[in-house]
């Protein structure tokens, strides 16, 4: 467990293996709640909290849970933490809880959390699993906030509820609609893929040249 490994885990979560932009997981919530930045932040932090906690517990129990019923066990653990988050939100941030509504309980079936449990936490020790949960959670939060930023800025002319683009601006109503979510997400994914492919090309060329020198 050294700094370099932690860094690479964060790089994966934020960019190269971003849950929303690259793995296309958790689409349902990412498309539905990104009408305002504040909703996206609330959702992102909730998912991150659940992700870290469930990763830690599943990693701790990874040798006890029988293989045959592991998915069911994961769901039970995840739903426990989702219930905690839901109650906390209701108590301390009722406004966000109200506007997110059903999407908080739906974190239980958010595929990002189950995917990290299955692909990472069930195979790694506690500390890396916790860091993986944090990295993926931050990656999700950044993705939904970026999506919500574009949609709120151009769809209502506001950011965090504060009017940014003045009266002259006629908001693009479509961006607030579900169709706008798909179009915005599609454009962002295209940009991220373009960036990643360029990087891949560069890496490939670098490796190729090194190979030549060595050979």
């Amino acid at each position, binding site marked *: 467990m050294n700094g370099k490994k932690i860094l690479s885990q964060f790089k994966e979560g934020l960019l190269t293996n971003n849950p929303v932009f690259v793995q296309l997981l958790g689409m349902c919530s990412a498309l539905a709640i990104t009408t305002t930045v504040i909703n996206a932040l609330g959702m992102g932090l909730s998912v991150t909290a659940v992700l870290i906690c469930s990763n830690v517990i599943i990693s701790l129990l990874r040798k006890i849970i029988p293989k045959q019923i592991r998915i069911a066990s994961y769901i039970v653990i995840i739903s426990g933490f989702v219930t905690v988050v839901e109650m906390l939100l209701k108590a301390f941030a009722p406004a966000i809880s109200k506007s997110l509504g059903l999407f908080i309980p739906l974190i239980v079936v958010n595929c990002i959390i189950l995917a990290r449990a299955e692909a990472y936490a069930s195979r790694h020790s506690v500390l890396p699993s916790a860091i993986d949960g944090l990295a993926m959670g931050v990656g999700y939060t950044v993705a939904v906030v970026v999506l919500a930023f574009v949609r709120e800025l151009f769809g209502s002319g506001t950011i965090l509820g504060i009017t940014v683009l003045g009266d002259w601006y*006629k908001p693009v*109503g*479509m961006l607030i609609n579900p169709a706008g979510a798909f*179009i915005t997400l599609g*454009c962002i994914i*295209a940009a991220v893929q373009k960036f990643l492919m360029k990087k891949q090309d560069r890496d490939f060329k670098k490796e190729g040249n090194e190979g030549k020198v060595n050979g």
Partner: protein
Amino acid sequence: MKNDQNVSTRIVAPSLLTVSPSPHIKKGITTRGIMIDVVIALLPALVWSIYVFGFRSLSVVLVSVASCVIFEVLFELIARKPITVLDFSAVVSGVLLGFNMPATVPLWIPIVGGAFAMIVVKGLFGGLGKNIVNPILAARVFLFSWTDIINTFSEPFSSLPIFSFSVDSADIVASATPLSPMKEGMLPDNSLVDMVLGTKSGCLGEVSGLLIAVGGIYLLARRVITWHIPVAYIGTVMLITFLFPMAGEDAVQFMLYQTFSGGLILGAVFMATDYVTSPITEMGKLIFGVGCGLLTVFIRYFGGYPEGVSFAILIMNLLVGYIDKFTKPKRFGGVTKDAK
């Protein structure tokens, strides 16, 4: 030994003769030629819209054309792709986009619409020939973001400022399109002659069914389009509105009102027949046209908007791949199922 010689002659042959896959017979048809034909076919309707709505409609169309051309060039420059603006497809898109909005729009509407059509719908999908839906219709639906602007229609022959960026709402003599009363189960005030000629309110290019049909016949004569899609589309709408009239006493009258209102003829002749987003086979084209017709009538009868042409064509655009798959012709000499 003999075999070896055969192989060597076969290898030499291509340098002596040109060997290429079909098609072998070529005609001087180019994208540019087809697009110029489409522009010519659109001119009568453009002249009519200037007659009905004044020169304001010309400035809307010109801004729209300029926007489409400029944004296509800009996108291709940024994406480092070959500049394809000389194929005139952006000009056609621009004219059609201008045809899809009322004369009262502020001029930023055609600019934004052109940017959306050329960059998001056409450019990002790979340019001409690769877009999955019709760019102009997608832009039109995008422009519904500003419903109050895009649905403010002016009375025909009311004078509008020609060059000013936006039209003062006080200057607009607002008027409903014939489709609005029909949505509520009444016939519009316009006479049938008004409907056919196009002295009614509506989007620039859609008002005169007659002149659009003239353009369509020119395209048919030039073999730019085939009859299948327009006939299947308009025929389906006529049949259903005749069988199930929603207003008036006379089914034929209602059918004619429905046929000549909204963007039906413009859509059927110029939008649904777009090569890129329509099926290849004749059977496929018929299915596509009937589907467009059904959806148009369903949206007009039961949908939230009075007009359904844009949505109908967009939805059918998305199904073109499947239609092509189902109507793939059998290969001549291919093995049939029985023989297997």
